[in-house]
């Protein structure tokens, strides 16, 4: 998956936040909608798309969507 595709897929997990707010450099934890449910959705999405398991700790260790993408790709 390319970075752009990842950003788009990441955005799909959100119901309230407009799609255009999601960029590679977006600090996702600053989004109003970020919380335990969206975190869980991202973990589930990575599991589904990549068949890789990221943890809550992984999510806490990065801040932008691009950093998360790199982390997932490197797993």
């Amino acid at each position, binding site marked *: 998956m390319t970075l752009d595709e990842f950003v788009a897929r990441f955005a799909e997990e959100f119901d309230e936040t407009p799609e255009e707010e999601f960029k590679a450099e977006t600090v996702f934890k600053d989004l109003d909608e970020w919380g*335990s449910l969206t975190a*869980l959705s991202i973990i589930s999405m990575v*599991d589904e798309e990549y068949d890789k398991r990221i943890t809550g700790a992984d999510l806490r260790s990065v801040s932008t969507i691009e950093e998360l993408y790199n982390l997932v790709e490197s797993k």
Partner: protein
Amino acid sequence: MAYNPFSLEGKTILITGASSGIGRGIAVECSKIGAKLVISGRNEKRLQDTLSQLQGEGHLALQADLSTQEGVDALVEQCPPINGFVPCAGIPKMQSVKHINRKDLEEIVWINQEVPIILTTELLKKKKLQKKSSIVFIASLSGIFVANMGESIYSTTKAAISGFAKGAALELAAQGTRVNTICPGLVPTSILEMSNEMFSEDQLMESTKGKYPLRRLGKPEDMAYAAIYLLSDASDWVTGINMKVDGGYSLL
């Protein structure tokens, strides 16, 4: 002889999931209060670890992978006659409702829900469960008393077990056998790592303070003492209950 209405002297108890966490804790404490244990687990090494922690003589370890029907059948076949049964093997899976897929659904339902039911039926059919036995399912707060984010399938299986326990309690009363569940609050075991490490150490400590009126998380021993009560003759008139052991979590 010292007065002890909770003694398990003379009782043989089968525990699945005894190679780790809560199941191991229950096995160890039951052995200390006089029970003979038949412990089962998937990982041979961890199972042997538990065996070495048991007090007294005459315990039996039966390695079994319960993910297949063959594994379930082999366990029933090798099991000696028992007076108590604690199906404790279980798996979590954190997943949002939007991402549930059939493979995960079937895997979790099989281990958490179908295996305990099938084992109960087979142990009865093969006359392994003696008259006046006690069955103690390890359910959860989830699905019975509370809901947690990401635990919808897990909750489904635990609520199902609670339903089964009531039905079985009614039918098996005829032979003096009692059926109950224990519903644990959060006990830090390897189950938490498997559930995607959603909780950091800090978060766990935070939840201890805020969410548990008794101001700590659970220990396997907390579940073991509840299991001892339900397995012993002290609970001779208790059947069909869900026993919360949760430090008051569900009060808030």
